[in-house]
């Protein structure tokens, strides 16, 4: 019932620009960060429970659990207890800042950089001309890729033009078709949730 009333209110709100409607919408959305804060406590609790169990039971790879738990609690403690720089001033950052910039950011950048190698290996698999359709894909990819770089124009003006045509027409048409389907899928899913046809996401499969 709460979902149904809330859902219908949100639909009506889209068509009513009046301030009362906007206030109700803001009131609803203001709840999101509050719920998120409480859910985060549950999430951290779940992570702590799982890894403490692993350490206690000496489960397989239990040593890695320390690598999770120590930064999980260490970083907030450092941020709250020692927020300021030990050396003072802007030149020597706080310990939290040091770990964030020199450990977390670097590791995240490394993960993201791996994408380049993964794209290369995925492209190799995708562009193997095993069938007629795969050959079309390979040709289209070669034209589009060469059309994007200066050497493509040197090879012939038709190359960037054809690449642009592929992107603007067949590619965009396919994208729009998918997006239209997604739009209707969203609409149908929302209606199913609002009118109680789909309750599985609330933990009531098939009821």
């Amino acid at each position, binding site marked *: 019932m709460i979902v149904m009333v809330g859902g219908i209110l949100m*639909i009506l709100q*889209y*068509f*009513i*620009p*009046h*301030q*009362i*409607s*906007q206030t109700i919408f803001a009131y609803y959305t203001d709840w999101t960060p509050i*719920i*998120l804060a409480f*859910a985060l406590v*549950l*999430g*951290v609790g*779940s*992570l702590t*429970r*799982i890894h403490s*169990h692993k350490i206690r039971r000496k489960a397989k*790879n239990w040593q*890695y659990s320390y690598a999770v738990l120590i930064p999980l609690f260490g970083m907030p403690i450092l941020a709250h207890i020692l927020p300021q720089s030990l050396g003072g001033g802007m030149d020597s950052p706080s310990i939290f800042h040091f770990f964030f910039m020199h450990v*977390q950011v670097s*590791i*995240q950048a490394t*993960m*993201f950089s*791996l*994408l380049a190698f*993964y794209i290369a*290996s*995925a*492209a190799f*698999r*995708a562009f193997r001309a095993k069938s007629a359709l795969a050959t079309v894909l390979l040709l289209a990819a070669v034209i589009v890729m060469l059309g994007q770089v200066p050497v493509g124009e040197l090879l012939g003006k038709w190359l960037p033009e054809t690449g642009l045509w592929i992107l603007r027409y067949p590619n965009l048409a396919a*994208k729009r078709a*998918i*997006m*239209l*389907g*997604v739009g*209707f*899928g*969203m*609409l*149908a*899913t929302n*209606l*199913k*949730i609002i009118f109680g*046809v*789909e309750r*599985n*996401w*609330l*933990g*009531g*499969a*098939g009821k």
Partner: protein
Amino acid sequence: MRKNWIVVPALMILLLLPALSVAQGVDEILTPAAEEQLEEPDSWLDAPGAVTVQDKDNDAGDQLLVSFEQPLYTDGIFAYNVYRRIVGEENWNLVKVIPADDPREFIDGYDPEYPIEPGVLYEYRIASVTVDGEEYFGPVCEAGAVSAGEIYHTGKTRVLIASILFIVLIFYYFGKAQRGIKMYMRPIAGIEAIDEAIGRATEMGKPILYVPGISSIADVATIASLTILGRVAKKIAQYQTPLIVPNRDPIVFTVAEEVVKQAYLEAGRPDAFDPDSVFFLTTSQFAYVAGVNGIMMREKPATNFYLGMFYAESLLLAETGSLSGAIQIAGTDAVTQLPFFITTCDYTLIGEELYAASAYLGREPKQIGALKGQDACKAIIMGFITLALVFGIIDVVANTHILDWLRDLVASPIME
């Protein structure tokens, strides 16, 4: 000789004197006119004219449409300062600075520091600002209207009509399905492979990894993923295969935990539910990828499901899963990530197939009805596209403009 030398310049001076006097006379005639042109203009001439204020349509009552007359002389004007105050108050607030070349019409109320209150009467004063920063103030004008919120956005009528039409269609098919009328459902390879993938993991005695995307619960793709998780978890519970569900969003985690617990309960095996199977990892995107990839390489799941909303991490996850030798089923409505999943996964649910998966797995009449309703909506859109194609050809052949008429009818902008 000396006397002669003095006489020559003296004579020249005498000859030049009348010419100088004539020239001076001309100067006397010209100077007043030139001075009249260069004279500093009256400050009122450089100031903007009257201000016109109208209530803006289709707003919450927090915007006014303000326009003002251009000054007579605009040379040297750099910008216009717009001042506003409530009638009866003393202090003016500078609410907008408009560059001289910009249109002299604007919507007041965007600045959150100086909001427009509904039903309050304001007065305006515009000042021309010179390059030196001098201001030439125009007259104080009381607003001819107060702001009021509307109860219906007239610009969204087309959206409303389309929404009602689609809702009616979906409900019509709901009813049709409930009356027991059999409806055909096109087989989707990715959905049909779910049972096979669960069976494979059971035979191999290895866990199943389910990644519900990295978006929040506000994303419809995440909700669709959680509905599929319920169906999948029910089958997994029947086979008693281990399940791993790492989550990036804390709210999604709590919902996913509840969904899996309920699925085990419905399968009649509540005791088989492992509370450690659904867990929160981290909110950081690439830390989450590192965590899930680590699970893939250590636990070696036999089947990986990636269903929901994905961003740059899609390929990192799917490629690692592919290297670990798992059978992979992905599904997302993120158009930019679909190629990565298609390349690296065994089966991919493209766009709307993700939303249809729950209906396919459940086979409940109402769910199937919703699917058919969706198809009917798509048929209408296809009809419009075909019509646009025909009209476009007619326009070219017969030099008409009927495509513009159709475009105005269907695709006019909803926002002003």
